[in-house]
């Protein structure tokens, strides 16, 4: 054969140095108002959750005016005990964010670990998959209700229960992705070079699925807010902390869900905004990054 090549001929074929894949993802994410708006809303909630309770007093005891519509003194009105609904919503923000954060972390850690293990160790796969399928086919809310009722409601119980029952969904997703990654030749290559299984799982597979993890952590956290609200609404929330679900629950017990509309409306809007923003951020981030690794074909 007579084809000869020089180094420069090969380098000349490279396109001009563009942005790294991550930079491109972020640029696409913030291309347009949606990225900014949702991130702004989420940031607002974080600010309120962290600093709000320092500024607003914890609602307890009995207030003077019961079930008053929104006014200058009570921006969100008062509830059946005369307490300021606005304060309840502010304090509830902190609760929702805490539950979302920790339940999300628990679910993601367990789910990712089991998912990657199932994908890499063929022998573990049937066990983990069966467990995941069984848990996924059970109706989650009734299950959480039963467990919380038996253990006794508290913020810790709620966080643990929600986090523990949320991992199967993440596990299934991570496993599906990790299976694809494990089959790629570069994993074989890593084994052939002499990498230990733990190193492969952490350094090769985990980074590949981590964008998925981030997105799903966000979505799981969002769902955790709803689960917590649901459990509190049914009376299984922590009686010592205010949460959005608890506001609705007291309205339900007093029978004023519709008449005292302010008690229903404001927590509902809070839930909707927080969850919707988090969901949109998660989906948008996912969409922004999928075009990153298509690469240059000759």
């Amino acid at each position, binding site marked *: *054969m*007579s*084809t000869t*090549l*020089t*180094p*420069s001929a*090969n*380098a000349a*074929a*490279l*396109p001009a*140095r*563009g942005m*790294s*894949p991550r930079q491109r993802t972020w640029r696409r994410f913030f291309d347009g108002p949606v990225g900014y708006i949702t991130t702004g809303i989420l940031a607002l909630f974080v600010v309120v959750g962290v600093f709000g309770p320092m500024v607003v007093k914890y609602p307890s005891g009995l207030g003077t005016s019961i079930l008053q519509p929104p006014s200058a003194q009570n921006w969100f009105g008062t509830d059946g005990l005369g307490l300021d609904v606005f304060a309840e919503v502010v304090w509830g923000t902190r609760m929702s964010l805490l539950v979302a954060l920790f339940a999300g972390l628990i679910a993601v850690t367990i789910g990712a670990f089991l998912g990657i293990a199932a994908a890499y160790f063929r022998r573990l796969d049937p066990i983990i998959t069966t467990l995941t399928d069984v848990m996924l086919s059970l109706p989650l809310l009734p299950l959480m209700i039963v467990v919380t009722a038996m253990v006794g409601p508290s913020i810790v119980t709620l966080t643990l229960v929600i986090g523990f029952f949320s991992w199967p969904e993440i596990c299934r997703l991570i496993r599906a992705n990790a299976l694809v990654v494990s089959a*790629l*030749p*570069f994993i*074989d*290559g*890593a*084994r*052939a*070079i*002499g*990498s230990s299984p733990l*190193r492969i799982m952490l350094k*090769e597979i985990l*980074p*590949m699925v981590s964008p998925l993890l981030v997105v799903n952590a966000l979505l799981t956290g969002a769902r955790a807010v709803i689960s917590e609200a649901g459990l509190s609404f049914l009376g299984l929330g922590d009686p010592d902390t205010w949460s959005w679900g608890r506001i609705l629950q007291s309205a339900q017990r007093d029978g004023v869900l519709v008449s005292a509309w302010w008690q229903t409306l404001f927590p509902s809007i809070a839930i909707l905004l927080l969850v919707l923003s988090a969901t949109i951020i998660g989906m948008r981030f996912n969409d922004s990054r999928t*075009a*990153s*690794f*298509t*690469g*240059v*074909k*000759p």
Partner: protein
Amino acid sequence: MSAPLDPTALDPTSITQHGTEVVLDVRDLAVDFVTEMGTVTGISGVNFQLRRGETIAIVGESGSGKTTTVNAVLGLLPANGSVRSGEIVFNGANIAGATEKVLRRIRGAHIGFVPQDPMSNLNPVMRIGDQLAEVLIAHGAATKRDVKAKVVELFEQAGLPDAASRARQYPHEFSGGMRQRALIAIGLACQPDVLIADEPTSALDVTVQRTILDRLSLMTRELGTAMILVTHDLGLAAERAETVIVMNKGKIVEQGPSQQILTNPQHEYTRRLVESAPSLASARMRPDADVLATERAMAASPVILSVRDLAKTFRVRNAATGRREEFHAVDGVSFDLHRGSTLAIVGESGSGKSTIARMALRLEEPTSGSIEFDGTNIAHLGGAKLKALRRRVQPIFQDPYSSLNPMSSIGEILEEPLKIYGLGSAASRREKALDLLELVTLDASVYDRFASELSGGQRQRIAIARSLALDPQLIICDEPVSALDVLVQAQILELMIRLQKELGLSYLFISHDLAVVRLIADEVVVMKAGQIVERGSIVGVFDDPQHEYTRTLLRSIPGVPVPEPLAQSLE
């Protein structure tokens, strides 16, 4: 199989009856694509004519525009593509940019299509017979009453055995070759004026390819259908078509009678193809004194890898019977690889060649038999000894797009093996990585890039560079060039040969492509269904193949003369 094939009927130049009527006239066609980076030109200035009953071939590598051209003719450009200018005159009318309604009447009925991948191009939940029937009915070539009979008839013509009962089956119950026959039947169902075959055999096993192409030629000749054969293989194009059109980077660089293109290429690109495309280059190779001398020297050198009675059995569930069975992927294989030489293992999918490679890399453990590397039996090695072994035996895999971690920079990829063995400092590792880049003739600036920014050929160079990071002695190459474009294949093979000479490497080279193997291997072992059917020096096997299977493999390389067995055949 039905009607015997008449060899003279397949020789393109022997056909004297050709309509001179032009069926398809493509004039100055240009197609644009709208991408994230702006409008990109797909093809431009494409001019050719197709006469009634003629077969022409469009040859090009990936990105040459050959697929875009035929997509434009069918009106099936992707959503972001459109015809910028030019005409596609079919039977006198310009169909470029015609309405969907007009195109629908033409597609299937007047212009047929045989796609590349038979598995993904058949509806998995519809019976095969029904898929053919719906085309016949849609274009009025059959009524509900006679469609069943017509379906069976067409499948028989395409060479499907048991056509009547096969028609009631689903695609996943067919083999690759049978599916492609079904697709050919569907493509020619309404006796179209033109048939477009887009790489109709690239997704098939090598031994099946020739029979499918023969059947295609036979059927189109019988029906008088003109055919456009799209392929990346110039040798195949010249063998099957009267006229060859060579495309590169969206333009036609040369077109003319096929023999002329092969013997007297005018354009530089065509000349490069003729010179270096493995199938053509290997066909021209003849044994010379130099090669024979090397052979003798190599046979005398020490053995670095010695395999004896190697076997690997998998337990799989037989889908038809539902029982667990034993599948003998490798069944009693023995061979020797001499230091500094290249031993090729050739076979089709399912032959067991890849399994042998994986066992040599100790990604799988053999069920029985021994693998001796430099005197040590590595078959059941474990722990630290295995890790030490891995330094000396390294892999190069087939797919350049998935053998490199897309999330790591090139520098990180090259330094990873060194980090795992704790070799050197950060500075010395970086230096080694840059040395490796130089070794594979890549610019140092590649160090900071990511795999997604490189072409297939460049990525494969990185894969080669990485395999050399630990200064190994044996490199196991599993189809290292099969996923690359033809010209790039030649470059990579040349690189590998040079490195072998410079560094004294030994290669175990796995491939299904005898043409590629011819260009790099010293010895070859032919495998079928887990067993070795023939072995010998590369020259010996090419010039004097003993086994019928080897001869079938050789026949699939267009233009290679296959020596037939002598009169005293082995019965």
